[in-house]
């Protein structure tokens, strides 16, 4: 995807802002940008370069935090992959219709002090009112013809609504992060429905699925040697430990089971959800054999809710028993409360600078309350909403935004292999952290068309529905 950038003089950083504008005005400004860019290229070799893009990335953000994240990640991507990025801050709930827009074509600093012209255009649209519900019509005029259009929905897409269907009409791919869904269970099923009914050109990807790669690779590696292939037909049990309580936190586990079951052609027979986050399911394999699958919620230091902690696969083939156990090595201490920034306490209780001791006590108490509120936040939320634990997250805006994923997702996987009476084989593998931008690029490079994900998602959703 990378593009060689010209060494011609840059037109300099370009910026445009408009309040209460129309999309036609944004389009005019964008065209003006491109003309300036092309003109600035002329001294190079008298053969101007068009402003190339390899894709249009539409990032839909519901909050300011999401908008900032979208800009930051898409800028990281655009440094290497020339793109038109449209960040839409969707504020459909605001009655007064209005579009505020900005365009930036930053200059990228290069080694040696010379700036490179950037093949990156960032369009930001703050859309209030009903127009925000017509995303397709809003962004379609701005799209670059002939290059893929990808939508990255940072929060929870409005599954099953006209708004999403309309948006997907202009898209070649939809990328979501099911770890950030506000109502994970319902949204996960919505995602599965969307992928089943989307137009055939549409690719769909989930960053959470990409984060399961190390697990899938480790499992696949066990069965990769030719001598172990028959073991695939001998699997009798699979157990998964996951963190957190409630069905919303079972999504990665269910998708992982969906991946295995759909690959091996297993059919779900029954599934039961019990207390303590326990799930028991039975699949029929090879039309006669039963495979038992169990999930359980196990608190494990260092894991955030929903993360998979352990996968165990047990079976027998050709008179030999085998057991594969892949576990997250405990490497971190308990999760810290998020940094909430400078406390507003001092502003609320100004002392005039005379009572420092009293202020210190007050600060400590405030910090203690914040920590307690954070620790008890789930029970407070679930008491207030009536939703089962893990079912939903507190609505935005909220101070205590709990992440279902960590900023640093590096991990150590410990694999134990027992085959027959042989000694246990141990393998320790460190998985380096992948940020969202890297995962996004990886998914989009292949057009987000991943039939393996599609069938794993469908099978995972079937299991979740059966509970």
């Amino acid at each position, binding site marked *: *995807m990378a593009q060689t950038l010209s060494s011609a003089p840059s037109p300099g950083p370009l910026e445009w802002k408009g309040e209460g504008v*129309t*999309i*036609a005005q944004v*389009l005019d400004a964008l*065209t003006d940008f*491109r*003309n300036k860019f*092309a003109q600035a*290229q*002329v001294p190079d070799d008298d*053969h*101007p*370069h*068009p*402003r*190339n893009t390899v894709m249009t990335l539409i990032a839909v953000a519901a909050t300011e935090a999401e908008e900032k994240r979208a800009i930051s990640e898409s800028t990281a991507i655009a440094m290497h992959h020339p793109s038109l990025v449209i960040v839409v801050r969707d504020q459909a709930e605001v009655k007064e*219709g209005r*579009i505020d827009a900005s365009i930036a074509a930053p200059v990228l600093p290069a080694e040696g002090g010379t700036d490179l012209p950037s093949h990156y255009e960032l369009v930001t649209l703050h*859309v209030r009112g*009903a*127009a925000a519900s*017509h995303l*397709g*019509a*809003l962004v*379609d*005029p701005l*799209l670059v*013809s*002939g*290059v893929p259009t990808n939508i990255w929905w940072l929060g929870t897409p409005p599954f099953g609504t006209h708004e999403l269907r309309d948006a997907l*009409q*202009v898209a070649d791919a939809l990328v979501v992060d099911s770890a950030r869904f506000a109502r994970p269970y319902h949204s996960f099923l919505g995602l599965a429905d969307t992928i089943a009914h989307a137009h055939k*050109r549409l690719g769909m990807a989930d960053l959470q699925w990409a984060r399961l790669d190390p697990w899938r690779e480790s499992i696949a590696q066990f069965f990769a040697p030719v001598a172990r292939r028959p073991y695939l037909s001998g699997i009798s049990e699979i157990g998964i430990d996951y963190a957190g309580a409630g069905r919303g936190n079972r999504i990665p586990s269910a998708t992982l089971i969906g991946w295995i079951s759909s690959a091996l052609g297993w059919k779900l027979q029954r599934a039961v959800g019990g207390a303590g986050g326990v799930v028991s399911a039975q699949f029929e394999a090879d039309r006669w054999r039963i495979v038992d699958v169990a999930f359980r919620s196990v608190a494990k230091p260092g894991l955030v809710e929903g993360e998979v902690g352990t996968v165990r696969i047990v079976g027998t083939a050709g008179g030999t028993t085998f057991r594969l156990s892949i576990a997250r090595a405990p490497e971190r201490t308990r999760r810290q409360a998020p940094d909430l920034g400078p406390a507003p306490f001092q502003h609320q209780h100004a002392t005039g600078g005379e009572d420092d001791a009293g202020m210190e006590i007050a600060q400590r108490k405030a910090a203690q309350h914040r920590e307690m509120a954070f620790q008890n936040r789930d029970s407070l939320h679930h008491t207030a909403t009536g939703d089962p634990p893990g079912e939903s997250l507190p609505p935005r805006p909220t101070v205590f935004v709990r992440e279902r994923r960590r900023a640093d997702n590096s991990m150590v996987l410990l694999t134990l292999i027992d085959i027959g009476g042989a000694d246990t084989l141990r393998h320790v593998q460190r998985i380096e952290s992948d940020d969202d931008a890297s995962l996004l690029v990886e998914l989009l*490079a*292949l*057009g987000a*068309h991943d*039939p393996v994900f599609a069938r794993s998602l469908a099978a995972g959703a079937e299991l979740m529905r059966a509970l």
Partner: protein
Amino acid sequence: MVIFGATGDLSGRKLLPALYNLAKQRLLPAGFAVVGAAIDDLTDDAFRKRASAKISEFSRTQPVDEAVLQSFLDAVFYVKVDFSKLDDFKSLGRKLDDLDHARHVGGNRVFYCATPPTTYETITEQLRASGLNSGDGYHRIVVEKPFGTDLKSARELNKIVQRVFHEDSVFRIDHYLGKETVQNIMAFRFANTIFEPVWNCHFIDSVQITAAEEIGIENRGAYYDKAGTLRDIVQNHALQLLALTAMEPPVEFEAGAVRDEKVKVLKAVRPLADDEIAKATVRGQYTSGYVLGEHVHGYREEPDVAKGSLTETFVALRVFVDNWRWAGVPFYIRAGKRMPKRATEIRIQFNRPPHLTFGRSAAQELDPNAITLRIQPEEGISLKFGAKVPAAGIRLRSVAMDFLYASSFLVEAPEAYERLLLDCMIGDPTLFTRADEVEAAWTLVDPVEAAWRDGRPSLQMYAAGTWGPLVAAKLLEADGREWHRP
């Protein structure tokens, strides 16, 4: 040049600015003068003032060059003409004679009918009656589309005009033909060796022609409600694009040769049989929706449109060109108002390779090769082909190679009217439609129009800001294809 309807919209927005820009480029002939003719009671100075304002507002080149503008306005005159009064035409004749003497233009005259088609007959008859169609120099008439409302009326109109002017002196303007990108279709096909060998049914799977506008009918409700998109866009612009895409190479780039080939293609288009029309055509009308982020009314809420109007604002159809080159290749035409954006393009989609060397899974992201000729905006050409994704193993994806007019040439493309007005003065009718072309186009459109009047197929509604009714997508889906998103 005499402009009938000189105080109207076309004159102010297009003709006068185009003539000014020709003057700026020093392309107007020596002694050239414009005589505005309309019903309004204006003096030369009042008309010049009006012309000056319109040129300043609508000129392609900004800011206007005051010296050039002043010099141009010195050659602008006005005569009040009521088209029903012969005396007014005689007055016009006297004015033209005066200008002949003063400016030594040798009696050369171009009469431009920037008026509704209903006036063409009256104007041509009055020109004949007043003797303005003969004498020293050339005498040419320019008429705007639509040329009639059906085959019958087009034939009658041709007869009337040809009674007064020889066919070589009749210039029927379809301004699409004046666009650089439209002319470039011929350059692309016939000035390169690599495309023409694959430009046939052995390599091409299908052709899509899209003419989309984001605007509605603006203030043309009264006209549009009678015309509809089939007559307003498909009969002329879209079929002209089809003809240029499908025509055989002319022997030379000369009016007769080019127009002969275009007519051959239009005559080779298989007229839709009565029972095919319901399956191969789609007609739609926009309802309220969001275009460019703004809420817009539905067609029936537009001024001067009947409340229960059944006029189409969207057309999609599939036709075949029955000749050796195009046998079996469908041409899909789509035109509409209140689409998500303005885009006119021709997309040539090629067949898939006969054998998937890299396997089905490696090529699942791979679209067939395609050439997109973008007529407007972002004028240019794009070639889509497959490439290997840089990674281990073989996975293929489609990538595009682009040519953009805006960044490949250091000159701005002239307005279509500049080119066409100049050609008319030079006497080159290559980019104008001939009578038999117009009639061939109506021959194709008339049966569709007749079936639609009988409600076959039924009118489909689509929300403004979308790419038309769902059945338009199904038209292609049924053939295993889909519309290209411009």
